[in-house]
C-alpha cells in the first residue's frame, strides 16, 4: 500500500500547487470518476468469474447489512452522547 500513499501525497501537492488551473482540475475530476467506474466494472467481472462469491451472494449480502447496522447504530449512539453533552446548550441560548 506504500505506493498508493506516495502517489496520493504527490497528487495532493500537485493539486494544491495547480489549484487555480481550472481545466487541469476538471480533467482530474473527470479522470477520477472514469477510473472509479472502470474499477467497479473490473471488480464486477472478478465477482462474476468467482463461483464462490456468486453462490454465496445471500450470505455475503446479509453479512454486509449486519456490519452496516453495527456501524450506523454505533455512530448514532456516539452522536447522541455528543449532542447531549456539547451541542444542546449552544442552540438553546
Amino acid at each position, binding site marked *: 500500500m506504500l505506493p498508493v500513499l506516495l502517489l496520493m501525497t504527490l497528487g495532493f*501537492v500537485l493539486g494544491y500547487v495547480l489549484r487555480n488551473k481550472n481545466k487541469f482540475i476538471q480533467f482530474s475530476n473527470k479522470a477520477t470518476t472514469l477510473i472509479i467506474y472502470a474499477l467497479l466494472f473490473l*471488480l464486477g467481472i472478478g465477482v462474476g468469474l468467482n463461483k464462490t462469491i456468486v453462490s454465496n451472494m445471500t450470505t455475503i449480502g446479509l453479512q*454486509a447489512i449486519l456490519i452496516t447496522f453495527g456501524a*450506523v447504530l454505533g455512530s448514532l449512539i456516539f452522536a447522541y452522547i455528543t449532542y447531549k453533552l456539547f451541542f444542546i446548550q449552544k442552540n438553546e441560548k
Partner: protein
Amino acid sequence: MFIVGVVLGIYKFLPDFLIENDFSKYSLYALMFFVGIGIGADSNALSVIRKTKIKIILVPLCVILGSLFGAAVISYFISEISLTEAMAVAAGFGYYSLSSIFITEISGETLGVIALLSNISREIITLLATPFFVKYFGKLGGIVSGGATSMDTCLPIISESTGKEWAIIAVFSGVVLTIIVPFLVPFILTFI
C-alpha cells in the same frame, strides 16, 4: 457498471486479455493520484478545516469511533468475518466506490463485495431513515449515519430533517471522512 461486470463475468462473455491480466492494480494507482489532486485542489476542503471550531471535529470523530466500535461488536457474531475485516468495511463510511476497491486489492474479492454492499446500504439507510434518526438520536443523527455521503447524496435529506444551519456541519463531517477513508481502510487492514 458493477452489475454489468458481474453479468459479463458469469457468462464469460469477455475477451481473454481482460480475464488474464490484472489491470485493477494500476488503475488503483492512477485513481489515488487523481484523488490526491482532487483533495489538494479543493479550496473548500482546506478552508473548512482551517475555520473549524474544536466542537465540529467531534462529529466525524463520532462517526469514526462509532462505526468501528459497532462493526467490532457485530464481527463477534459473524464467524466468517474477523474483527479487522469488519472494521475495514465499516471504515468506508458510505464511500462505497473507493473503499470497496481498496479492500478488494488488499483482502480479495469476497470482502470487497461485502464492503460495496455494506457501504451502499449505509447510504440507502440514511436516505430512508434520517427523519427517524434525528427524532430519536438528536440533530446529529442523520449526519453521522450518512458518514462520508453527508456532503453530497445525503445532504438534501439531512438539511431538510435537521435544518439548514446543520448542513455546514454535515458537509464538514462528510469532507473529513471522505479524506480519511483512503488512509484509514488500508491502515486498518495492514496494521490491526
